[in-house]
């Protein structure tokens, strides 16, 4: 226990903002915090759905929760059920084998709901495209508010995508 506490104390808080090292991220974090406060009363819950990705985007979604980005510190949390979610974060070209599961997850998410499609595949089908097995972009299957490109998109880009989706809905 002593070593754990010592390590925690030695590392301290690494969560950015660290303006001089990653300016883009700092702005994203601040704006995101305000918007979440305004539209979702201080908390936003996200249900992630992998609709057929290569698992690259999942790596970056997981990175959002590391101490540098510390998404949860902003009141944004990943939840286990779409019934608890404000937002769906969807990755991958939608495989035809995931079509029904994705639609059911969307239907199970209560209104008002936001959908962010992640990655080049989620935005446009990516390298897999549309075929006998793939339906391509997420918006071919469910309504999408924001599409964040990248292969995979960086954690900063994902945070900015989440923010943009929240602002859009706020203006509507």
């Amino acid at each position, binding site marked *: 226990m002593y070593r754990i506490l010592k*390590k*925690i104390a030695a590392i301290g808080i690494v969560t950015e903002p660290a303006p001089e090292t990653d300016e883009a991220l700092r702005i994203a974090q601040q704006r995101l915090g305000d918007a979440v406060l305004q539209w979702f009363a201080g908390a936003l819950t996200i249900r992630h759905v*992998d609709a057929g990705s*290569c698992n*690259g985007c999942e*790596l970056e979604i997981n990175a959002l929760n590391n101490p540098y980005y510390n998404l949860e510190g902003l009141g944004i949390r990943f939840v286990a059920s779409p019934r608890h979610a404000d937002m769906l974060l969807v990755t991958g070209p939608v495989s035809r*084998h995931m079509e029904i599961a994705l639609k059911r997850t969307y239907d199970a998410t209560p209104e008002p709901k936001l959908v962010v499609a992640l990655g080049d595949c989620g935005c446009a089908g*990516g390298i897999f*495209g549309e075929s006998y097995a793939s339906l391509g972009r997420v918006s071919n299957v469910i309504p999408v508010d924001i599409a964040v490109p990248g292969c*995979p998109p960086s954690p900063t880009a994902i945070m900015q995508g989440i923010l943009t989706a929240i602002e859009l809905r706020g203006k509507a």
Partner: protein
Amino acid sequence: MRIEDFPVELTPVPGAMPVWRGTVNGAHWRTLAQQVRSKGGRLVALWGVDRTDAGAGFEVHAAMTARAGLVWLTLPVPVEQPECPDIADIFPSANRMQRAMFDMLGVRAVGGDDYRPWLRHAAWPTHAFPLRKSFPAAATHPNGQDDYPFVQVGGDGVHEIAVGPVHAGTIEPGHFRFSVIGERVLRLEERLGYTHKGIEKRFESMKMLDGVQLAGRVSGDSTVAYAWAYCMAAEGAAFFTVPERALWLRALLLERERIANHLGDLGFLGNDAGLAFGLAQFSRLKEDVLRLNRAAFGHRYLMDVIVPGGVACDIDNEATRGLRTQIQTLRDEVALLKAIFDEHPGLQDRLIAAGRVTPELADRLGLCGLAGRASGLSWDLRVQFPPVPYDALDVRMATHRNGDVAARVTVRFEEVLESLDLCSAIVDRLPRGDIRGDLPAPLEGSVGLGWVEGWRGEVLVALEVGPDGSLRRVHAHDPSWHNWPLLEHAVIGNIVPDFPLINKSFNLSYSGADL
């Protein structure tokens, strides 16, 4: 088994790995599999090929290990009677591969008792086979009815828990059907194929030089291993010798991919056993690795850095300094965290004896890679058949005999530390020279095979060149094919709440095996 003992004529396949190729007839298919198995060999991959566009028929391909390398056997199959003998009783891992081969190509392995579909759910009908040349890639079929016959477990108090395809965490989709009494798991049956997105068919519409991008996205967490395996196959098919500096850089990338994934897994394994401290620390270290990847190689996960003919970028002095500093920092931090993990009684209580796979079972069912080494199977391609630069690096293999979650944690720790040593040696001894050469256009019908020890296990890519530099067939094979069935065994007798921990300790790819 020795190469000269094979009762068929074998010819060496050009390329970086020791691979021999031969054609077998139906009568010898099972006998050969039995001989390989009895001499301690393993089935590495099994797939089907449609060569009707080249005036031939269908083929079944199997890659098996022999004492001196890999033996790549081909069984021609007539189009009129697309069948081959079932070998799943000899190599249990063949079960799903043979079922997938039928779903994709319509070649049935006959003689077994499991004819259920594997990769096909309801996206295409049972009489259509996507990997046949006559099947247009863009063809769409109305979604049919998908009622997979799970094995039912009967008896007093037995009930089922159905999980997925959408899971509770940020992971890939798949379905798990547990049969339990109280909290204890009697049986787990997996149903995968949800992320099937037509990768193998997609390859056939690409040029050989472009296919590497798709290969690097078969399983995103193993992009380096796949890209290297693909390039190894393409370079073999083109009789191309890669500049030495490029090979050393590829190994540096492969080891950094191993380090990043192992660090991430160690964090999640701590977290799944209630030690959030572990997740915070290890995910911080992983992020450090990713950021340096971005700075030194241009991509956090190193996608598209390995290209046919070499690598896309070199490291400069600043990157070299950054790599050296990070190696030293990571060594110290990981060593301290290992001591904390090892001496944490609450954590060890959860890890020890959970999800056990005995060495006997691992050997019988064909466990491979990291999980195999945690169950006493001493197999690491970097040691067994080291390609350049591993032949000069003297890799120390991490093995353990307990086969439980704790053993898979220990192997990860040891492999991270070993990979750090390897990175250090590579940076110090990196030969000078070119990092990339131009691949000559390969001839139609040339074949190549890549075989790389990724962080999860052996990644294999086999390819055949079509007309004008196109790809007639590419098979990309993930080690998860072999290890998913073992997860079903590992959870027997454990409690349901330990499943996430046990599952994470294998951390298998869905996308890689769903293709």
